[in-house]
């Protein structure tokens, strides 16, 4: 079976996606840092345009307001530093998230690579949801938990944060700092509102005095928080987990028992997904994640010949970022056909 027949057999349609795309959705969803990695150009009409750097975002935009389904794509993408190369992939849009849907995406990635003749592959899997659950079980202050979750996938940044949390952080000594430390929300808000008025800041555009006061108070409390040695050890032990997926459920359960953490339903779903992937050789690496805001759960990638040839994951937040009215769960993967070919495949 060729890659094209495989993708067609697994999907409902292949939406047509233009090469020239509005740049804003990419910058809005992935952030301004994407700008240096794509080919962007000004248009005389509305907003900047870019050469298609990937298919997921335009595909989600093309399916906005349409029925749920599974969609395939194949074509050229353009990136700074690499120039143009071919990608193919599959997106499962609008079906309720489930262990089975996740597993299907991983199996289809392996199937697509097999259709290219690549069967000697190493699949690595991580899970943002498990990490967030571990952090939640440690009952850290919200701001600290959110910051750790955002850093997930960047090992150095997570390690730095854990280290910084082992001692209290310095706090300032201004009037605002004093009010924040005292937790006096009303006085702090009035103080901030006065500063905003003096500065001529529009009171309703952007951050409001109440938002700033609330974060300042939370921040003053968080500055006092320190991670116990045991909590730090628990986080480090979790991030060090690296095991065959078939054994990962038990390893996580044992880890949770030792740390006295309740991983509840998140662990059950993890186990369910792992058994749905029985027969496929997958490694679970607890620290593996993608530092993109819209990834919410499982992430995975495949290596062949020492190169990452495919990757994917669950991105339940992307469609909302792209302006969908309804929450729209989504999971998918993409193949780097240039690297697949270098690894000996025939895409």
């Amino acid at each position, binding site marked *: 079976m060729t890659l094209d027949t495989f993708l067609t057999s697994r999907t409902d349609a292949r939406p047509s996606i233009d090469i020239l795309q509005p740049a804003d959705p990419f910058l809005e969803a992935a952030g*301004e840092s994407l700008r*240096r990695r794509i080919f962007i150009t000004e248009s005389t009409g509305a907003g900047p345009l870019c050469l298609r750097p990937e298919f997921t975002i335009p595909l989600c935009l093309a399916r906005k307001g349409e029925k749920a389904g599974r969609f395939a794509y194949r074509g050229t993408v353009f990136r700074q530093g690499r120039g143009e190369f071919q990608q193919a992939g599959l997106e499962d849009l609008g079906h309720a998230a489930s262990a089975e849907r996740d597993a299907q995406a991983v199996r289809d990635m392996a199937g697509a690579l097999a259709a290219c003749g690549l069967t000697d592959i190493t699949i690595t899997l991580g899970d943002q949801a498990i990490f967030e659950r571990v952090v939640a079980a440690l009952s850290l202050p919200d701001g600290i938990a959110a*910051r750790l979750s*955002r850093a997930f996938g960047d090992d150095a940044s997570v390690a730095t944060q854990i280290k910084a949390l082992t001692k209290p952080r310095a706090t*300032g000594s201004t009037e605002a700092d004093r009010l924040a430390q005292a937790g006096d929300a009303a006085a702090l808000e009035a103080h901030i509102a006065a*500063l905003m008025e003096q*500065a001529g800041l529009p009171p309703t555009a952007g951050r409001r005095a109440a938002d700033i006061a609330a974060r300042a108070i939370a*921040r003053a409390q968080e500055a006092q928080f320190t991670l116990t040695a045991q909590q730090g050890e628990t986080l480090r032990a979790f991030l060090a987990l690296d095991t065959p997926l078939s054994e990962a459920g038990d390893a996580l359960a044992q880890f949770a028992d030792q740390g006295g953490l309740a991983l509840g339903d998140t662990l059950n779903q993890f186990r369910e997904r792992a058994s749905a992937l029985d027969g496929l050789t997958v490694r679970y690496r607890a620290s593996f994640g993608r530092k993109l*805001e819209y990834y919410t759960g499982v992430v995975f990638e495949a290596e062949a010949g020492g190169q990452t040839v495919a990757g994917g994951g669950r991105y339940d937040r992307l469609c909302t970022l792209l302006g969908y009215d309804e929450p729209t769960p989504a999971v998918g993967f993409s193949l780097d056909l240039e690297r697949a070919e270098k690894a000996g495949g025939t895409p």
Partner: protein
Amino acid sequence: MTLTIAVPSKGRMKEDTLARFAAAGLPIAPPSDRSYQSQIEGRNDLTVLFLSASEIARELARGTVHLGVTGEDLARESVANADGAMDFLVPLGFGKADVVVAVPAAWVDVETMADLDDVAATFRARTGRRLRVATKYWRLTQSFFASHGVAVYRIVESLGATEGAPAAGSADAIVDITSTGSTIRANALKILKDGVILQSQATLTAAKGAAWDETRRAQVDEVTARLRV
């Protein structure tokens, strides 16, 4: 064998450059009428070109001049891989300006880039749009923010009066140059504690891609030695 040195063609940067070169024993002869070319007085081997500041950075990157006097901020902003294309040889002590990240002073909860990252991460959920940063320093902003892990924000291009953007409602924070910080303070903004992106000044800079040989290297050694004092 001549060495080409590009210097600013107008304004304060031109005056300061002429004074600095003269003080170093390398007086630049006034160009003849309507010409942009001159030389170090009595030195046929040291050609001087008067160019606009942005042209100097560009010609250094291309290697069409050997040396240039340019602000480090401008060179790093306008050239993709500045360290690969040029050597910043001698800071000249004038044209000093810091490129900084500043936020409204009313943001009492934001002191560091980590704070700004927190605010940026929840900005859209609270306001329906991304945090906007006004600047003309796209490249410096992107790489500095990325090095601090800040990804979700939007740059709003600003070609003047950047420090007024938050009050005008066209941006939430700014990246701009300041020499004393007084304009920043006058606009009720504050510089983040770890928000100094670059301490810039006029710098004698060599183009790595220019045509180099032993004679020219010796000439550069002589010019840098004199200016370094």
